[in-house]
């Protein structure tokens, strides 16, 4: 019993309950919502946002933010796209190049924030614009067409014909991310930096190194998301990923990651991404105009934030 109670007291439990409520409400409104295919759809639609959101969770816990994830996606998309098509590179090698590229772009943010001391919002606002420009320059503004089927099958196929590989990639990244955040020293440092950077520095922790790792992990998430999108669409648009950063931040915030830093979890973020996706799919199934989805998303974000305030108040009293 105590184990169950402890589980329920965790912040993730509330997101899980909210997710469950959304699913229940929509399945009452339309039983089709609960069909296997639809559920897979919900998860599938959460993959790209989920990958971005997991990456951004690291950064937000340090007390930072990364607005450049959408633009990072775009660079990875066009570079990997060109490596595959004009470069004729083997899909696995190209994917590895994509991940390394994501790390490098993340490190650019890390240097701006932790070495030069720019405010994370401004630093990544700058790279959001600059990275986007780079993506356009690489292709001259044109999309990269005709991804090889082998690459598309690798990232957008189904394992045993049932489980979408993209979902497995999301899960793998979530497991690795969860391990780093909860079981590694870097994870402790990331939380400590978000809680009190100065105390952490005075404890002998290398702030630059650990912040850089957080931004690099965020870059990895963006690279994975980009490559999944590339495989899905079969073409690489330099305009891809615009506005995606906001959904990623929303998923993390709904999952209980505090924008003030020092608080958050991968499980929560994953649930947050699923909640957003379940809501969107549900509204589509109900035939609600897509314009209203934006309002629903906004309402959920505001509610999650307000819920956090109430929760803190209760915790202080307890």
């Amino acid at each position, binding site marked *: 019993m105590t184990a169950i109670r402890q589980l329920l007291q965790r912040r993730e439990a509330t997101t899980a309950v909210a997710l469950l409520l959304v699913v229940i409400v929509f399945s009452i409104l339309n039983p089709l919502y609960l069909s296997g295919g639809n559920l897979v759809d919900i998860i599938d639609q959460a993959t790209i946002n989920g990958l971005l959101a997991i990456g951004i969770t690291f950064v937000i816990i340090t007390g930072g933010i990364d607005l450049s994830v959408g633009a990072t996606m775009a660079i990875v998309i066009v570079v990997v796209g060109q490596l595959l098509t004009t470069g004729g590179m083997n899909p696995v090698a190209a994917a590895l190049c994509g991940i390394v590229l994501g790390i490098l772009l993340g490190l650019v943010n890390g240097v701006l924030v932790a070495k030069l001391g720019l405010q994370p919002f401004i630093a990544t606002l700058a790279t959001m614009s600059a990275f986007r420009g780079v993506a356009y320059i690489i292709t001259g503004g044109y999309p990269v067409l005709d991804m090889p089927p082998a690459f598309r099958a690798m990232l957008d196929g189904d394992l045993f014909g049932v489980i979408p590989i993209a979902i497995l990639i999301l899960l793998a990244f979530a497991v690795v991310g969860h391990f780093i955040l909860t*079981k590694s020293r870097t994870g402790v440092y990331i939380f*400590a930096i978000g809680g009190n950077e100065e105390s952490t520095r*005075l404890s*002998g922790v*290398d702030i630059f190194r650990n912040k850089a790792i957080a931004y690099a992990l965020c870059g990895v998430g963006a690279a994975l998301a980009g490559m999944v999108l590339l495989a899905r669409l079969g073409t690489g648009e330099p305009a891809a990923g615009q506005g995606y950063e906001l959904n990623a931040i929303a998923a993390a915030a709904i999952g209980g990651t505090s924008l003030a830093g*020092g608080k958050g979890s991968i499980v929560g973020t994953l649930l947050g991404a699923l909640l957003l996706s379940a809501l969107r799919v549900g509204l589509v199934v109900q035939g609600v105009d897509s314009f209203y989805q934006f309002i629903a998303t906004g309402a959920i974000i505001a509610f999650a934030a307000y819920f956090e305030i109430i929760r803190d108040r209760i915790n202080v009293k307890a």
Partner: protein
Amino acid sequence: MDALKLRHVSKSFGSNNVLKDVNLDIEAGTLHSIVGENGAGKSTLLNIIHGVYSDYNGEVDLFGNTVHFKSPFEAIKAGISKVHQEIQIAPDLTVGENIALGSEGAYVRGGLLDRKKLYARTDELLDRLGCKFRSNARAGSLTVGDIHMVAIAKSLYHDAKVISFDEPTAAMSDREAEILFSVIKDLLAAGITILYVSHRLDEVITLSDKISVLRDGEVMGTWDRGHIDKQTMIERMVGRELNTVLQEIDIATSDQPVVLKVQGLTGDRFRDISFEVRKGEVLGFSGLVGAGRTEVAEAIFGAQPYHSGTIEVNGKPVTIRSPRDAMAHGIALVPEDRKRHGFVRNLDNKMNMYLPLFEKRKAHTVNKSKITENFAAMQEALNIQPNDPNYMTVQLSGGNQQKIILGKWLATSADILIFDEPTKGIDVGAKAEIYLIIGKLVEAGKAVIVISSELPEVLGLAHRIVVMHEGRKVTELVNDHLEEKTILHYAMGANQ
């Protein structure tokens, strides 16, 4: 007629009684000074009078009416304002806007601020204070002295009857101070009552109509102009009995090797600091708040840069650019500001204690059982309440938080430990425990530096005492029947 009358005013923070049954009569139109050591309760007293603390016992009368301000703004509206130790202005607003900030009411027409009219009024106030700058100047471009004038003008804008000054001259040049004194005389001539708090006893003696001495939250007495001299004042300010926990110190450590040697260390706020600490020795650092002691400690620990000078550890010169460097040479710093520099609020006890150890023990993963073990091992020496490795440090009492921070550095087995105000805001019981821990460290052959503004603490712990004043080392004294007043004399800047 008394402008202010305090009757049986007491204030405590937790179990710490900061003010005990304070009675004061401040006569209207006079300058009344309040002097005392750091931590004597002067700031708390001012905070009560000015409505910063509304939770206190006793009675405050303003011109015969009992008042109980809920906020500083209420006090200002009632005609009592304060010129802060470190004045806060909005640097990007003009002088006039700063003066009127929050009370522009009379100068707002249809939602717009009538600057012309406002500035006419504020310029008048500036003229009255003899200021050369005008209301349209950007506040951020002013000097410290000018900013004080803006603060005084703000008090006049609110038609203040009582103005209090908290260490106004601390950051001023002599010339700026002279100008301030002449303005203060004009204010007195205009019938305004002035409450004056300062460490600079000479100016207190010249300016005051009356002087009250505060010690450990109690008023030791009030004297009229000319009835008390600097010597007596200092004696009244100190003269506490030594804490019984502090033992007799064996000062014969001169045969021990020098562990830390600092020569000519110069930084932004301190110059040419040299000293040595030997194995098994406590070196005390005394001085007033702002004398530069914390800055020296932070430079040695790599928390802030130094420009020149050398640091030697065990006879070898070392370069320290970051806390990591300092830790690699076995130096630890227990900082003064626990919340900001000591621990991390979102980590629990065991994690806060382990934070510097990951690197040292080359641990790349979180091994919960080892981390808990480390807590348990440290707990034996520390007696943290509650004895719970999973408790959030931020929820502990000040004394227990300090023990967590102590534990964190003891665990690194540093050989040189710097304690900055180790018992600040800590209750008596935990204080004694911390003294005992420092005693054990010395027995174990560590080199210890204790920075403290509490004289009995330095006298009870240190073998030798470095006294600093305004960023410089004034003297170094062997703690052999030293008296508090001797240290205080040097701390006040006297050379002999």
